[in-house]
């Protein structure tokens, strides 16, 4: 199986403020990371806050700067070096790779109707020829994301978290992308809704032949939906493996610590968490 996205030695460094004296310190948000995302796979990227997982996901989409290293995207039709796209290529890449956000409240423009939000990518990129065609596409994808078509006239403030996330997904998928980065797509949702969105993502993957990079801090969620998992800590990938293998036999001490930290649902299994010490 060929790789849809190949990340090689990718680094993203941010300057940390300005200093009058000496060299400005940098934040190594992502440091020499390599990651393969096979076509049709559901790759999980796990890490705690500040681990650089969001930056990595955005760098792949060219929404965060690439300091060094390369990101390659090859879906059979096109073969892009993402760091070196020209304007036309970048525009094309935007139709092929999309992002789903964590916060369903901040990701939707409050002054646009749901129809306008979903239609925006089509209109901006002029992918449709007429308003009728746009509406047709919007209705199609909205139905796939199980949105009530009568609700397209409404504004985002009328929706609950789960519904908003479905709108967000519909917007990301309306251009027919091949690759989707889902950044903590269920973290802000209630448990009863979370499963619904996860199932939706899974079924959309099958139906639309998508490849996912699923970013999350929650190992148990990742374990359920992903077939590959990479564990990130302080800008570095500590361990990556096929999901079952990784959970059955974690190699890195940090992965073990993460696993032990998940509170078990069994009241009789009250073990203490393993504390990870990076210096050990």
């Amino acid at each position: 199986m060929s790789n849809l996205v190949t990340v090689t030695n990718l680094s993203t460094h941010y300057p940390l403020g300005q200093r009058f004296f000496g060299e400005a310190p940098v934040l190594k948000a992502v440091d020499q990371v390599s990651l393969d995302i096979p076509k049709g796979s559901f790759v999980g990227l796990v890490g705690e806050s500040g681990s650089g997982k969001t930056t990595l996901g955005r760098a792949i989409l060219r929404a965060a700067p690439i300091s060094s290293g390369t990101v390659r995207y090859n879906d059979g039709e096109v073969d892009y070096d993402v760091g070196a796209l020209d304007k036309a290529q970048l525009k094309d890449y935007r139709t092929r790779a999309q992002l789903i956000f964590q916060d369903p409240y901040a990701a939707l423009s409050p002054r646009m109707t749901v129809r306008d939000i979903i239609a925006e990518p089509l209109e901006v990129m002029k992918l449709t020829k007429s308003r009728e065609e746009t509406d047709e596409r919007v209705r199609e994808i909205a139905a796939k994301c199980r949105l009530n078509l009568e609700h397209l006239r409404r504004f985002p403030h009328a929706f609950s978290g789960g519904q908003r996330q479905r709108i967000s997904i519909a917007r990301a998928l309306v251009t027919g992308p091949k690759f989707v980065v889902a950044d903590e797509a269920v973290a802000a949702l209630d448990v009863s809704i979370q499963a619904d969105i996860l199932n939706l993502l899974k079924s959309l993957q099958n139906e639309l032949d998508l490849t996912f990079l699923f970013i999350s801090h929650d190992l148990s969620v990742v374990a359920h939906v992903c077939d590959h998992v990479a564990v990130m800590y302080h800008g570095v990938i500590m361990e990556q493996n096929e999901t079952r293998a990784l959970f059955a036999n974690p190699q890195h001490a940090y992965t073990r610590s993460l696993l032990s930290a998940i509170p078990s649902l069994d009241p009789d299994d009250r073990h203490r968490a393993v504390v990870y010490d990076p210096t050990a």
Partner: protein
Amino acid sequence: MSLLSVKDLTIRFRTDEGLITAVENVSFDIAPGEVLGLVGESGSGKSVTAKALMQLNGGNTVYDPASKVVLNLPDTQPLDILSFKRERDMGVIRGGAISMIFQEPMASFAPAITIGKQMVEQLMLHTDMSKDRARKHSIDMLDRVGIKDPDKRIDQYAFELSGGMRQRAMIAMALSTSPKLLIADEPTTALDVTIQAQVIDLMKDLVAEFGMGILFITHDLGVIAQTADRVSVMYLGRIMETGPVRDVIRNPAHPYTKGLINALPKLDDLDAPLTPIPGDIPSPLERPPGCVFHTRNPDHVPGSRYEREVPPMSQVSPDHFAALFPEDVA
């Protein structure tokens, strides 16, 4: 005798859209040394309930006259908390007999006052310690929750500590006056998993050491399974099910509890399908009549009495109750 007894607590808020019911007929008891978990999703009214125990809800809150919150302290008359109208009366209880820790430790420390000053202030308010003793005691408490260099940290500000450290300091402050009841309002939600695990371990140790009653509020059933003795499950301001934590998690009686457990991804069985609870949580403006959950219950029979009547708390097993009509309790 129970330490805290909440009976028929009903809380409404006055808003632009009218009177909104946040909590309805909630009753529970906490015994000394017992950890009661209160689980619920967003909008279930769990935080509002917690704040009601200390009358911390805002000025637009309306407590139903039938609501009773009674605190039984050793050697004193039972205190009817909701009957206190003056801040001064509440002041004795808040931070003294009952302490509270919040979800966001950053936001709950005053940003421009050192942690130490805030701790000493609380101690001097509730005990007759001298300033020096209060400071020594605070350093001791910080040490006990696992903060290194407590004598240095005590003179720092909240923004100078890391997230986990702040939550530890918050716990140290809450426990410094040896309260009889600790209310922990989502104390681990804002933390990373590894830090969350450490804080949970710390709280388990402290329960063993101090023996106070705890009301532990969270949306995470796993956290409850790890910490609580008994659990109450809330949905849209009502208690759906309550009982010993093992009974409720292993043999849930209420469809909502069952749904919650089925929706949760479990690490030990990766092939188990995730079953969501259908539909969305209704907005507080559209509280369903009858059983508030019937609109999302997958097994709901249209036209049944759950659409009109509020089901009573029926006994499932000793100590285990669910908001179902008796004929539906298996």
